[in-house]
């Protein structure tokens, strides 16, 4: 059996998280700053360390946006290659993580454009239909936990890219609104609007399941 490691251990803060009041986190960020500075001077080893630290997060975001594991890995690789070439343009060594996510999101969007959105649209349509039918479903045929998770994943995957990107960054990756705004090139208020729309869309497609979860909670 292959050894599997979670891309993000549950409960672990994200690389872009708040370091205040957390000395260990603060020193980690300081170490990262040093690595970035070394990488800027052409140190491949330092850059390799950065790749190791950020690879899982970048790939996870790419996966949520592009959907396919293979494409996500391609995008993640390309993200780091572009990052290496563009290190000189990084305004602050302390912002390496979010800057990387910005490149990743940009590449994901390129990928989405080139691959077309029709499959995504069709997936969303099918999901809608399934949701409508589920509204009338026999209550005894309730989803198992695994099905529920699959359903949530699918609902996220079916969000329009415009909403999915900020949703993934904010709700799943824990980036601040301001950071999401920088990454997506939008205003924070716009990001908040997108989040509201994304949640509304999720509530719509997950209606019955949310009700069940409310009852359970």
């Amino acid at each position, binding site marked *: *059996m292959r050894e599997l490691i979670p891309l993000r251990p549950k409960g672990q803060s994200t690389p872009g998280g708040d370091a205040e009041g957390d000395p260990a986190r603060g020193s980690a960020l300081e170490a990262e700053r040093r690595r970035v500075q070394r990488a800027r001077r052409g140190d491949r080893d330092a850059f390799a360390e950065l*790749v190791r630290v950020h690879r899982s997060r970048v790939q996870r975001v790419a996966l949520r946006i592009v959907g396919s594991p293979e494409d996500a890995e391609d995008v993640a690789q390309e993200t780091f290659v572009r990052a290496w070439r563009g290190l000189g343009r990084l305004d602050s060594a302390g912002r390496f993580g979010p800057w990387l996510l910005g490149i990743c999101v940009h590449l994901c969007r390129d990928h989405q454009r080139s691959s*077309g959105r029709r499959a995504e649209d069709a*997936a969303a349509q*099918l999901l809608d239909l399934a949701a409508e039918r589920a509204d009338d479903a026999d209550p005894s045929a309730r989803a198992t936990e695994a099905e529920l998770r699959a359903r949530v994943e*699918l609902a996220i995957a079916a969000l329009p890219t415009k909403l999915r990107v900020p949703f993934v960054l904010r709700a799943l990756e824990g980036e601040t609104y301001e950071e999401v705004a920088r990454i997506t090139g939008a205003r924070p208020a716009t990001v908040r609007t997108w989040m509201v729309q994304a949640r509304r869309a999720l*509530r719509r497609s997950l209606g019955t*399941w949310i009700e069940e979860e409310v009852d359970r909670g």
Partner: protein
Amino acid sequence: MRPLLRDVMDGAASFDRTEALDAHAAGCARCTAALREARALRRMLDALADPTVTRADDDAFVDAVLGRLDGADAIGERRRGIGPVRLLRGALAVGAAAALAAVLWPTADGEGNSETTGVARVEDASAAADPVGDAAAPIAEPVAEFGAESVAESGSEPVPEPVPGPAPDADAALEGETGALAVEFDLPQEDVDPELFALALEESARQLDFEPHTAPDAREYAARVQSTLGTSPRRAARAWLASHAPSPRLDALSARVLGPGADFRDRRLLERSLERTGAAGRWAVAAQGSTGVQSLWRAAADDPASRSVLVALVRERGSEAVDLAPRGVATALVADVARAAASEPAERLLARFLETGDGAWRSAWRASKEAPGALVDALPKNARRASDDELQRLALALCDAPRAEGLDVALEGLLRGDAAGTAAAEALAALGGTGGAEALIGATRSGRLAAATEDAAWRAMLLAAPDALVRATAEDDAFDLGVDAVLRQTDGRRALWDGALAFLVATAEHGLADDGARVRALLAIAQLGAVRPAPELRARIERLQDEASSGVAAAAWLARLALGAPEREAPPAVRATVARGGPVSVVHLRLERALRRARGPGSE
């Protein structure tokens, strides 16, 4: 309370703020419901499993990135169509499979004890167990474990496995084996016939300490058993296997002799002897029809050799052998064998996934070269008749292969079927609800549908689900597009009018539609004219006369007149609208004309 609710939703609310919200919600039913819903959704998001990667992938990933930095990126660019990750994955898969084989491949030692050994040991043991040579060569690469994660998950192309071939028939086996004996015992070929060898088998079974390899004078011994014993090869083989005497060569031969036409007793004997008889024994079991194949499936869960033979069997017999897998055998194993055999058509694998929802079939389908094509083929027919579960699975499959060649065409097929008109109607009605309506709006907006197809599809949707069409137009902010399209579809069919009216009224009522779109919808109703709407629709139009927007109120009045409303006098809002004048618009002109008609001649 909204910002607080949002924080709860984000998982970012502080304890104090959460307490404040709870305190407020205790006295506010609306906030209580919203809070519960927000927390439920948050819990669902928190429960999502994080995608995983293999730790070994991490190093490979870093190497790949650095390799590209070193200049390989130029090559990577030229090969962009293939994709650097896939190339790397392909190489890694081969290496990983070989490494796995070295580490995990279980086999049996001379005493029948299982142990984990390297590839070389496997080859030695198998060669000893099965003398037929290349036809019975063991699998050198266990391509995947039987867990949820298989190599198929890696997305690499399936690696064809070298597997043992089918057992030669008993006569050929005997002939080959006796030839080998002749060489080994330095006997003239003509002196060693199958019958003689069978006799030797039985004799050796009787004398448990018999060891042909050390017989001092094999020629003499063979002559002796031939003269003293008379028996059939089958009896000899049976006797040998029952003897428990160790001789891989004779074990394998005996299994082959017993395989075809084995009776109940022979089958049990063969199944009990699997540890000794190698690939030949497994083929012998498989040769016993469906019961034998089912036995092999059951054995394969713990026995890689059985799995190898199953792979070859599936290659030879296709889906028939897969379908024989009995209940209780893990789907992951069945899918893995099917994938390794690479003989199951991709569409069959996809169909199995759509039918069962088992991720193992999805993985097997994804690993197939023809996966995208199979999806393209599956789309139109499955969307029409799929259950809600199947639709979810189809959506998952779509997420897997968004760039499938021809997918555009297939998705187009979802909208219009193979021919314009009725096929489009069927496809849309099958997609149903908002899904079909949104697809239709998207296709209309793209301008890629033929006019006849587009009209047929809109008619179909108006008949099938006008309410869903309203929801979809609201969702896509496509009211104008919808009103225009609906107006084109009035071909005199009453049912169609009903659908069109329902759509237009709902559009006029919709809170998200701007006043311009609402007025256009009502004017479209007026344009439809002589339709007798259902009383409920009539009442809804009447209510629109009381709208704050005088334009909407006026258009509603016009619509009611066109639909034959009894009262002719314009309500005050309409009169005020006309009196205000303003820009000369179609609405004003129509209103003025209608007012004149309502008041009779000379009312100017």
